[in-house]
């Protein structure tokens, strides 16, 4: 005799039967099973290693007309702090400006002419640090440390006869320019970025269903039996959603301007052309997913598999330059990374076509590669 009442035993038996059936089905759907294990693993690695909310090694350009031991000491101090990675040594301020606008560097450190002489004379020369503040969280720590770094570097340098140059007041007047976003408002960064995130999410998912829906409903047999070529099917399935993307873009841009007061510095035409390209890139990727997936469920899972790194490694949620190099390379593959640079560049930094040309090219290459894969994967038979 069981200790449990018969009704409960029967209920438990049925419950276990259902649980067992679910388990069998879960094991049979390899893709879902892999996803359930794969996504947490990916999250773990990405969150754990790639994401850094205290970004260090930020690329920095130095503009100095002169060389001196003191300047070298200051630069060493910045470098050794771990926050600044001195990548470029320039004479021309305009060249440094372009690097900042393109997002190739996060900081430009400028030593005005006569810096060393004025420092030794005790005239408190200015030292200018321009930061790309379009993403305030990326630069804020480095900026807040700058004064301390400079002062401690100088303490070592200004010894002996120069020691009295180093009383309470810092011997260098540090000027910080938060470029593109002087108030450090995060929505200046987030709202334009959301444009890219929303397009990525919706466009990939919508077209991801495109072919799998035909397969699941059996209409693929008809589509294949009729005279339609792969490219026609692909473009035909993508086209209507370009319109959907255009509407999304209009809504987000209007909201950015009127609700969030994000400034619009650059060319609207350039921005819209870039958005158009970006929409097509994502639709092409979605179509490719739908030729790879066997069901709508799988297409959805592929979408998330792609969406997660897009969100985490593109520089949308966390500073791109703060990530380790391997994560940055991974990020470079994602169209969202390039789109974010374009949209932030054009909206906040008044970047022109030549400044963003490289990013546009990257998205074009991505689209071509993905489109080619889709065409190759598209089967003209039911094999």
């Amino acid at each position, binding site marked *: 005799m069981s200790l449990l009442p018969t009704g409960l035993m029967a209920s438990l038996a049925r419950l276990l039967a259902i649980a067992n059936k679910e388990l069998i089905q879960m094991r049979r759907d390899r893709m879902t099973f892999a996803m359930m294990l794969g996504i947490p693993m990916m999250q773990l690695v990405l969150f754990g290693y790639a994401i850094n909310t205290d970004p260090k090694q930020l690329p920095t350009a130095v503009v100095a007309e002169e060389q001196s031991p003191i300047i070298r000491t200051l630069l060493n101090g910045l470098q050794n702090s771990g926050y600044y990675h001195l990548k470029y040594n320039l004479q021309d301020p305009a060249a440094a400006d372009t690097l900042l606008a393109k997002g190739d560097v996060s900081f430009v450190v400028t030593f005005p002419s006569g810096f060393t002489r004025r420092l030794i004379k005790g005239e408190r020369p200015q030292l200018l640090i321009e930061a790309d503040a379009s993403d305030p969280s990326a630069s804020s720590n480095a900026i807040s440390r700058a004064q301390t770094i400079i002062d401690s570097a100088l303490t070592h340098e200004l010894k002996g006869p120069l020691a009295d140059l180093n009383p309470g007041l810092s011997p260098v007047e540090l000027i910080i320019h938060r470029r593109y976003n002087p108030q450090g408002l995060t929505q200046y960064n987030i709202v334009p970025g959301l444009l890219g995130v929303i397009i990525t999410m919706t466009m990939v998912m919508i077209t991801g269903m495109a072919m799998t829906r035909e397969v699941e*409903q059996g209409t693929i047999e008809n589509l294949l039996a009729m005279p*339609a070529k792969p490219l026609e099917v692909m473009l035909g399935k993508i086209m209507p959603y370009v319109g959907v993307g255009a509407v999304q873009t209009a809504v987000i841009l209007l909201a950015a301007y009127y609700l969030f007061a994000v400034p619009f510095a650059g060319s609207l035409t350039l921005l819209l052309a870039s958005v158009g390209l970006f929409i097509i890139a994502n639709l092409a990727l979605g179509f490719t997913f739908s030729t790879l997936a066997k069901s709508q469920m799988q297409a959805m899972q592929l979408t998330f598999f792609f969406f997660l790194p897009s969100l985490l490694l593109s520089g949308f949620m966390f500073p791109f330059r703060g990530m380790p190099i391997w994560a940055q390379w991974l990020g470079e593959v994602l169209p969202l990374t390039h789109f974010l640079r374009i949209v932030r560049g054009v909206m906040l930094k008044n970047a022109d076509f030549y400044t963003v040309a490289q990013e546009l090219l990257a998205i074009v290459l991505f689209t071509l590669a993905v489109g080619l894969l889709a065409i190759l994967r598209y089967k003209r038979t*039911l094999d």
Partner: protein
Amino acid sequence: MTELAIDVQGLVKRFGDKVAVNGVDLQLPKGEVWGFLGPNGSGKTTTIRMICGLLKIDKGSGQCLGFNVLTQAEQIRRLTGYMTQKFSFWNDLTIHENLDFVARLYQLPGRKAYVQQTLEKLGLHHRQKQLAGELSGGWKQRLALAAVTMHQPKLLLLDEPTAGVDPQARRDFWDEIHHLSSQGLTVLVSTHYMDEAERCDKIVYLANGELITQGTVPDIIHNAKLFTYRAQGEGVRLITEKLRAHEAIAHASYFGAALHVSGYHKAELLQAIQQVAPDVDWQAVEPSLEDVFIALMDKAGQDKRSYQ
């Protein structure tokens, strides 16, 4: 000699290490209606799909409507109407939208008027704005037939088009097929229904991916060289299993209340039934197509089992 719409030799299709179709030859003259029969999994659907280019042909050759089946699938598709058992049009499009889509893909001239004309012929004119998914099974198949014949194909490949459809709708469907055939269309239709098989000019019978027999219904019955006895009454039910177990009896099955017992050797069969059921009143009858098919199916099944 009559011209052939389909003329293929030695078609082979493998899925992994399973051979679905194993060397099927088919010569189908223009303008005829041929029935494609055989148990589930015998390779009927696979053969039809290979002919219209929906599956790659692993081995074999031939032509369909004058085009090479291996290299000219595109041209064959243009001149072929292919209809599946499962409604494979768009449930979330209206009747009109489905037909209009097909007409656009085939770039049919005078499209709008033609679609309207098709709707009227179908008798769905007043329901054209209804979603296709809301139609009953019979109407769905009629819509599908109208859709796959819109581009005026020369060949119709119908894969169990009337499965799950009521008898009235099936009869209407077949009237339409004969009407199309009278206009010169060649039709290859797979079915499990004997009454439909009897409506065909000729029948091809497939089992385990191989062509077992073909010909007109009387030919097939005659060639099967089967002898059948019929009996009915209470005593019969009790001895059915015993009859089935007897080696001289190819199969025993019920047609209504009557039991049909068939075998390949008349004398042995007669001896067997008299031995197992001497009290029953046995009548010699002409074997029906179904008797022949069940016998063929059993035989093919036994061959397969002994082969394995």
